[in-house]
């Protein structure tokens, strides 16, 4: 099969499996059997059949926001090695485009939240916008540093770093830390945001979508599941021990194993720790920036790649 088809297939399947896998892990840790793995897909299908309810305060911004957000995340699929294979498109500095697509998705979600006029949703929007001022530089710093180490400035290429030399190993190690922080925060998971919380005051992502219902909520949940799946894929690409030109089946197999491992790790982590205080979150996110800075400084040890 051509890589394009495989990538699209991965993007269609992974979100449900990742979300379902995390939920299943959490259930097992709490001694329950938990919902079916594909429950989130069933939820989306059920939501799509419903008639939405719009707040009387809202405008077209609220109504179209979720679809714009979904389109932005869908557009970013093309740049990600979803199954560990080369992505559909790769060009130098595509990670900037990737970050901008996610930024657009976040922006319309924030606008949609503000459109409801609810103070709770405004609060979530403010938190999301504030955290993004750390997350975006952290992402570009980390991938930019990896690009400086590898000399490959594409998203997929920079993440396929070969940690053989000492400096590359340091850069690899700290960027795993940075990317983990970024992926978990962008995917609205613990310890920044708890998707299972029931108190609006302590939510970030969930509180912003309180008023969305029916198909719009389905679009938002699809987009956020896809975001998480893409993030996990990026992390797995960074962790993958296989180099650039391996046997395709082996690459995909290792990649899927790593994704599974990450999913279980996220579920375990979410079962064992509590959400951070919001006061602490910026400091926690700064870990990603500092890790990215260390990765960047590591490039000076080996000299500039020619």
């Amino acid at each position: 099969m051509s890589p394009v088809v495989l990538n699209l297939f991965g993007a269609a399947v992974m979100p449900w499996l990742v979300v379902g896998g995390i939920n299943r892990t959490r259930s097992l840790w709490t001694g329950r059997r938990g919902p079916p793995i594909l429950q989130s897909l069933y939820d989306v299908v059920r939501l799509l059949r419903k008639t939405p309810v719009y707040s009387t305060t809202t405008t077209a911004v609220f109504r179209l926001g979720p679809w714009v957000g979904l389109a932005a995340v869908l557009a970013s699929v093309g740049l990600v090695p979803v199954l560990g294979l080369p992505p559909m498109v790769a060009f130098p500095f595509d990670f900037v485009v990737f970050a901008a697509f996610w930024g657009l998705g976040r922006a319309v979600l924030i606008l949609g939240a503000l459109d409801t006029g609810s103070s709770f949703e405004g609060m979530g929007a403010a938190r999301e916008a504030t955290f993004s001022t750390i997350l975006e530089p952290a992402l570009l710093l980390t991938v930019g540093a990896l690009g400086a180490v590898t000399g490959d400035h594409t998203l997929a290429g920079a993440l396929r770093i070969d940690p053989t030399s000492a400096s590359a190993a340091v850069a690899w190690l700290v960027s795993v830390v940075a990317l983990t922080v970024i992926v978990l925060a962008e995917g609205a998971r613990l310890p920044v945001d708890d998707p299972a919380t029931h108190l609006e005051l302590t939510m970030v992502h969930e509180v912003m979508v309180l008023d969305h219902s029916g198909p719009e909520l389905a679009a938002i949940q699809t987009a956020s599941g896809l975001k998480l799946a893409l993030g996990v894929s990026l992390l797995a690409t960074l962790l993958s021990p296989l180099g650039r030109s391996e046997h395709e089946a082996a690459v995909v197999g290792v990649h899927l194993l790593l994704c599974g491992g990450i999913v279980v790790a996220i579920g375990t982590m979410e079962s064992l720790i509590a959400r951070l205080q919001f006061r602490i979150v910026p400091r926690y996110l700064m870990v990603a920036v500092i890790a990215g800075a260390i990765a960047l400084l590591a490039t000076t040890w080996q000299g500039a790649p020619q």
Partner: protein
Amino acid sequence: MTLLLIAAGFLIAGAFLTFLPRRHPAVMAIASQAIASALTVYAILPVLLRGEVWDATWVLGFPLDVVDTHADALSAFFLVWSLPLTLLGTIYAAGYLKLSIAHGRHGAQHFALLNVVSLSFLIIYTAQNALVFLLGWELAAIAAWLLVIWEYRNQKVRFAGFNYLVSTHVGLFALVAALMFLHGQTGSMDLRSFSAFLAVPSSGRNIVFCLLALSFALKSAFFPVHSWLPRAHAAAPAHVSALMSGVIHKAGLYAFLRFTLLLGVPEEWMGWAVLAFGTASAVFGAVYAASQHDLKRLIGYSSTENVGIAAMGFGLAYLGMAWHTPALVAIGIAGGALHLVNHAATKCLLFYTAGAVHTATHCVDLRRLGGLLRSLPATGALMLGGVLAISGLPPLNGFVSEFVLYAGLFGGGGHSALANVALVATGALLAFVAAVGTFAMLRAFGLAFLGSPRDPSLHVGPEVGGTMLLPMALHGVAIVALGLMPVAVLGSMGPLLALFGAAGSLGVVTSAVAPVQLGSRVLVVLLATLCAGGWFFGRNARRHVTWGCGYPSGTSRMQYTGSSFSEQLIRMLATLLPQHSRIKLSKRIFPRGPGHVELHVPDAVEGRIFEVLGRGEDLFVRTAAAVPEEPRFAFAAGLGVVLVLIAALLARAS
């Protein structure tokens, strides 16, 4: 060149004709500017696209003697959008000032001054003689000042205007000092002849560079001399803010590039300095924009942010020239220049929409506005476009120019590993700027246009008229077109890059941007498909009040406010953004009477500058007080020694 002279003639004639009685003063201004813009664009296009160079010499009397004018791709690049955008601003002004003029204000001077602004562009962008250049420079400054103080009966407006006038003339002193120095070295007032002195590295060249940079930084409102800008822009009529911010102050960056051409190969420290000050401006502009309550002040701070981003590109170009890497020069110049155009298109749009908000509500205070999208749908939609564009989000224009700059910063074009580290770190700072800028703009739009009205006493008028909507709509078309066809725009920059010795590297830029253009178009298709589908899903939707999380009696006063939205960010950046708060809250468990909370973020940079100046004044006063009233022998002797020392130093220096 003759066509440009005719255009100038039309502008001057139009300026006088606005004073004709019994006619709307805008008609003549718009007509003359339309003709002048058409002539200029028609005349200048061959220069812009094919890199022709026009030189013309006008023999005049004392004190100018022979005046040389010179139009190359750099002049053309700035001329081609400056005049049409001023024309749009004048059309907008006709609508914006309609009420004042209907109430008996005499608008003729105002429209005549808008013509003068256009005229000053023709002078500044083609002058080859330093005195003529200064003339145009001063013409623009004075005209802008007079335009700012349209509401001169308001003391705050007069103060803001005076503040601008003083600031711009501090910059003028630096510029005059630099030009006098150059005249002293070369004995000529011709800009080209300065190049003989400027092309050779020397301490004199460094001094001139710093003076010029200070002057141009003041003109374009760079950190740390930006504080006049938000003040002036909050006081001026919307179209004046738009033109100053979007068009007039780009003259500072034009002059910077013009002198860059004379500089030959700049030294590396100059590049780092430009990059550092550009980055600092971008960071400070963005974080201050994120904390403002006044919509126009907020948009004004965003101008400092965006000229900073453009200057980052020019800093890259300086480094590229110092390192002899034409690819970096091409990326820096093309990225910076594209960002200038993008900023001009977007910033004018934002100020126009802010003006429309002001026209409809007589208020630009984000603490009182809310839910305007229902009453001002066209303005709101256009502002949403402008907000997304200036935030650098695809598929609109701001994204492309920022991408080009990222390509330069992350590309590893530095000549040492440390240089590359600095460039990548600057790239991360640019991402921070973009994220904070997005924060600021989403906050502004969300507070003013979304949600429900915050202040019931605020009367919201009808949507603004066609004369105001037309320029806004054209700007809206421009931001979409620039976003979807950036390769064509960048492709026309060949002659401009050739001036900087990077003609061969145009392909580096266009080939880097080509996939981005494709990506933006794919995104547009996806957006259109999904939004159409989504709209279909919602056709039978029911309506209900916003979910109040179990609290049934919420009011619109309980919405998240601007202060609460930026509270966490301000606390995170407390070192850059010291916050002043006035809080009066009851300490009782069941409070009686209303409480009061007011949070302000004053410009700490300006405060710090005045603090330092004040300390210097104190020192001066104390020293002066220490001088005895009747000069005694010791004092006289000391003065004599100092004079001899100064004379000796001067003698050694020369």
